[in-house]
């Protein structure tokens, strides 16, 4: 659905996006992660033809955004971090204005979308009387009006309260399930991404540092948490017997290929080392992300929310 090939974008001498290649398959909920200034919004801007790439190719829905922008964006809806509207006009009028930049929309279709996002009864009120949550719903309505196949969401939960974040998450899942939309989600909320996305891409200072499935990112196939009376001694013993290949953080051991936890426990007990706990543990997206940032010399974001 989206294909970026060797994309560069420089603002003056600063390279905001460097050699980015990315593929968002049809039907996926794809997460775009990165610190502030990592290049996420610039990449989205290039997908929408708002930012001109310095080099490379952007294709959306099979069309080149640079040369066939109108065709490429025909079935695309987008929401940006802070929903902005013409506050002095009604929600209904705003929807008419935005939708007419794509195609004429019938009153019936407008009413359907208004109902779908739960704004019925308030659609003729001025937008300046709307709460942040209602503005977000209106933003969603305008994104859904052209009957999109691809939805680009740039920080859609920004500024929402926990109830609003939950509602947005449910809405994204509903859009994916009921309408079969391909969704590109750029977010700082790692737990949101973890609950929604099937594939992710992590950007760091304009470079792609990871692209793959969420399962691959969080799965640590051979890593087990081991709680024993003497962890260093246990590691030495297990390494000597070839059951593990290494350890980390003073509590995890990496099992050798083909080794099960039962053999580890048996060995430790045989050597009179008490085993209090042994468990396979998947990483959270947060720990994966922070680890990735550390590997690439990045600072951790100061307001990173905890993962569930």
């Amino acid at each position: 659905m989206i294909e970026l090939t060797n994309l560069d974008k420089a603002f003056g001498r600063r390279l905001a996006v460097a050699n980015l290649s990315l593929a968002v398959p049809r039907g996926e909920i794809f997460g775009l992660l990165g610190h502030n200034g990592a290049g996420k919004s610039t990449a989205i801007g290039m997908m929408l033809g708002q930012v001109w790439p310095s080099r490379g190719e952007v294709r959306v829905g099979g069309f080149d955004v640079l040369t066939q922008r109108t065709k490429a964006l025909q079935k695309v809806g987008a929401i940006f971090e802070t929903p902005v509207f013409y506050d002095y006009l009604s929600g209904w009028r705003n929807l008419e204005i935005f939708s007419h930049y794509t195609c004429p929309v019938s009153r019936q279709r407008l009413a359907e979308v208004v109902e779908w996002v739960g704004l019925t009864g308030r659609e003729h009120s001025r937008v300046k009387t709307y709460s942040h949550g209602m503005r977000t719903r209106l933003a969603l309505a305008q994104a859904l009006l052209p009957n999109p196949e691809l939805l680009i969401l740039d920080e859609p939960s920004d500024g929402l309260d926990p109830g609003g974040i939950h509602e947005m998450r449910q809405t994204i899942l509903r859009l994916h399930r009921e309408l079969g939309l391909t969704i590109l989600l750029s977010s700082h909320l790692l737990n949101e991404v973890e609950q929604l996305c099937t594939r992710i891409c992590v950007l760091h200072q304009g470079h792609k540092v990871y692209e793959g499935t969420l399962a691959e990112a969080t799965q640590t196939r051979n890593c087990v948490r081991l709680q024993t009376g003497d962890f260093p001694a246990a590691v030495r013993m297990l390494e000597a017997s070839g059951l593990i290949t290494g350890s980390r953080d003073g509590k995890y051991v990496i099992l050798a290929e083909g080794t099960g936890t039962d053999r580890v426990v048996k060995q430790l007990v045989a050597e009179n080392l008490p085993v209090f706990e042994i468990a396979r543990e998947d990483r959270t997206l947060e720990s994966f992300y922070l680890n990735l940032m550390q590997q690439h010399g990045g600072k951790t974001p100061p307001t990173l929310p905890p993962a569930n």
Partner: protein
Amino acid sequence: MFLYQLRNELWKLFGKKRTYVGFVIFLLAQTLILLLFRFAVGPTRQMTRLLELNGFEPKEYISSLTVATFMLFPIAYLLLPLFVALVGGDLVAKEAEDGTLRMILSRPVTRLRLLAVKWLAGAIFAFFLSLALGLTGLASAACCFPWGHLFVTNPGEPFAVFDAAAGLRCFFAAHLMLSVKAVSIMGLAFMFSCFNVKPATATILAVALIFVSSILQNIPFFSDFTPWFLTYHLDVWRQLLAAPVSWWKVGQSLSLLAGFNLSFFVIGSTAFYVRDIKS
């Protein structure tokens, strides 16, 4: 689609309170000038003397039409450029500043199409503002002065007199040409608005350029270069209040203004086309 989009632009434009500031200020300025003309002795006495010296009957010529035309000059020179520049400067830059431009440009609309629609909406506003200026001027003058012939003291030109019917025609023809001036200044501000600047900057740049051109045009040293100044051609509306009308000058100014407007649009749209639209 184009008409839908134009209608939407007009909704946006006429839905804003600040769009009406110009109309309100014009009305206030006209009322003030009218009161001065009605109750201060100076302007009426001067006009009476000039008419008598030239053998005209002051009672026939100091009319609502004459007063409405008299009111037109200060407003057309000082207030009109300011308000059309205010709207022209807002058209693109305000949307970029507010973030709605990014929402629009996530749609499959070309930048050129978007600018064309916006420019046309601005031109419609400028036309209606000029028309409103004439109508309110004539209506308010009619409240205090009787209907009669038209006497025009065109600054820097010989005075002109018209009978009531011809005067009314000239009055509205001058307003039609005034709308060309309004559209051109709006187009100038619109051009600046297409660059990555604040709306106020676009307005100030346009107004400053108009004032600088006007000042230079009026410096005697530059008298030989007068036809080179934009403001000289923006004053084409004054030609319609002269007797006889110099139609070749009108044609010359109109064709040059068409060229100026096209240039403003091309420069603005080129700047807008190469711009990155970011939050």
